[in-house]
């Protein structure tokens, strides 16, 4: 039972980081391969606050999220004017830079890692924060600010012509995702009780992005489904030892080939989301029928 609970907690922690990334990648259209770096910032700051300063866990979570957010503002100023792939490469560089800085900081244990952190992350913290984060993400996306982000993803130039301050909304999405990654990092540090810079390498960053894409770009419920599947999949197949990562890779490839938009790309598994899908299908069918009827009329 403890084992299952452990996986559930890991899912819950990762979910927070992935939700943030879903706003950045799925809704604003910016791909990042450096969010492991923001997670690392959150994790190490939280570790410092709890282990060295002996402050309460709530302060540590807040500090972890905020410091990741503040650093993302600087990163955003430097990189958000870059187009497409260049932003992606810049985030990759950022993630690696954070890892290497931590590797060489002996105050936090350097490359050997930092053990014996206080165990403070509980079920209640993880589930509670998950609920709050899902609600906040949902409200953000379904608001005028969220729609502006989607407009940036869909057609940047047209968004500008519709009066959307593209840079500002990209920045909001980046800071939001960084804060969420920082919070997830804080939870992780005080759950595992052990930190090492390699835990936040590029593989971790790509893992997070893959969860967003796997679940479906532009879908919050898809992000949740993707996170649950991809965090638990390697555990479910743990008996196959070395094959489990092959299965993980295969699952990602199958999804990318079969459903390039991810499991639930652009759709939401909520009453209003489902209504929307059916309304769109109906409207399309009516339109096609009318066009056909008009063509028949022309021919006759």
């Amino acid at each position, binding site marked *: 039972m403890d084992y299952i609970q452990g996986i559930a907690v890991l899912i819950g922690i990762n979910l927070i980081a992935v939700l943030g990334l879903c706003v950045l990648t799925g809704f604003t259209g910016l791909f990042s391969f450096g969010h492991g770096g923001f997670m690392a910032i959150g994790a190490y700051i939280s570790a410092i606050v709890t282990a060295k300063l002996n402050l309460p866990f709530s302060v540590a979570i807040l500090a972890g999220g905020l410091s990741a957010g503040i650093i993302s503002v600087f990163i955003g100023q430097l990189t958000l004017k870059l187009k497409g792939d260049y932003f992606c490469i810049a985030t990759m560089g950022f993630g690696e830079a954070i890892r290497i800085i931590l590797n060489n900081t002996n105050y936090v244990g350097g490359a050997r890692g930092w053990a014996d952190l206080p165990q403070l992350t509980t079920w209640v913290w993880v589930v509670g924060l998950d609920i709050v984060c899902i609600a906040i993400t949902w409200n953000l996306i379904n608001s*005028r600010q969220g729609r502006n982000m989607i*407009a940036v993803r869909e057609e940047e130039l047209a968004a500008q012509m519709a009066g959307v301050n593209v840079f500002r909304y990209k920045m909001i999405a980046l800071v939001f995702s960084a804060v969420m990654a920082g919070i997830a990092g804080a939870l992780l540090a005080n759950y595992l009780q052990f930190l090492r810079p390699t835990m936040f390498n590029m593989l971790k960053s790509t893992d997070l992005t893959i969860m967003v894409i796997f679940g479906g770009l532009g879908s919050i419920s898809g992000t949740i489904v993707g996170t649950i599947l991809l965090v638990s999949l390697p555990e479910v197949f743990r008996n196959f030892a070395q094959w489990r990562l092959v299965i993980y890779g295969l699952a990602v490839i199958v999804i990318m080939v079969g459903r390039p938009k991810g499991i639930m790309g652009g759709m939401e598994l909520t009453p209003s989301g489902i209504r929307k899908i059916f309304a769109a299908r109906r*409207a399309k069918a009516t339109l096609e029928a009318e066009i056909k009827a008009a063509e028949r009329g022309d021919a006759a």
Partner: protein
Amino acid sequence: MSGVTILELKSLTKRFGGLAAVNDVSFKVREGGISGLIGPNGAGKTTIFNLITGVYKVTEGQILFKDKPIQDQEPYKIACGGVTRTFQNIRLFKELSVFDNVYTACHLSAKHNLFESVFRLPRYWREDKILKEKARSLLGIMGLEERQDISANNLPYGLQRRLEITRALALDPKLLLLDEPAAGMNPDETEQLMLLIGKVRKMFNLSVLVIEHHMDLIMGICEHIHVLNFGCTLADGSAEAVANDPKVVEAYLGAEEEKK
């Protein structure tokens, strides 16, 4: 020429490296009027639109909107200030429904901030209702209400153009720039579009500047026409004056006549 000038270009020049895409062009758009911008392919028409809307930076000269220079402003600020446009190659928010396209563009009519949105404070609810109503009424005016659930990329071409105009209107613009609104349309659709542009202009008290190759549309609705050729002004005046200008006939309309 009577009436107030809403937009004025003063010896506007745009150079890409050694090429002057727009060279010393000056003209005025009268408030409440429909003006046309015509010229052969590559004359610099769309470049002028991109300069007015801030997509390109002006090399030399001035753009005055309501007597204030706007050439150094960010594109979104120009749009918020009341100048908006459509695109030659339609640029809708493709994956979104027709309704969401307009609903998104209505955002300037609301003032609630990020905090109020995320925590769903009273002002969010109040203003969101207004946004939805505004989007619905715009779709109604433009005859798109029956199509509001369909995703924009599934619309037929003519309706996509119409949706793009609707989206532009959602910003409550003072000046609307239409870049070849009738491109790819048959004569029937072109005529419908003409009527629609006229109706919209009266209803929203707009000034319109339109780029077009369909001469019937240009001659039918534009009170004032500016002709460009190779980035330079060729002629400027009323529809008849321009149509009878020998230089214009030679550079542009002449070629059209021969084809017929």
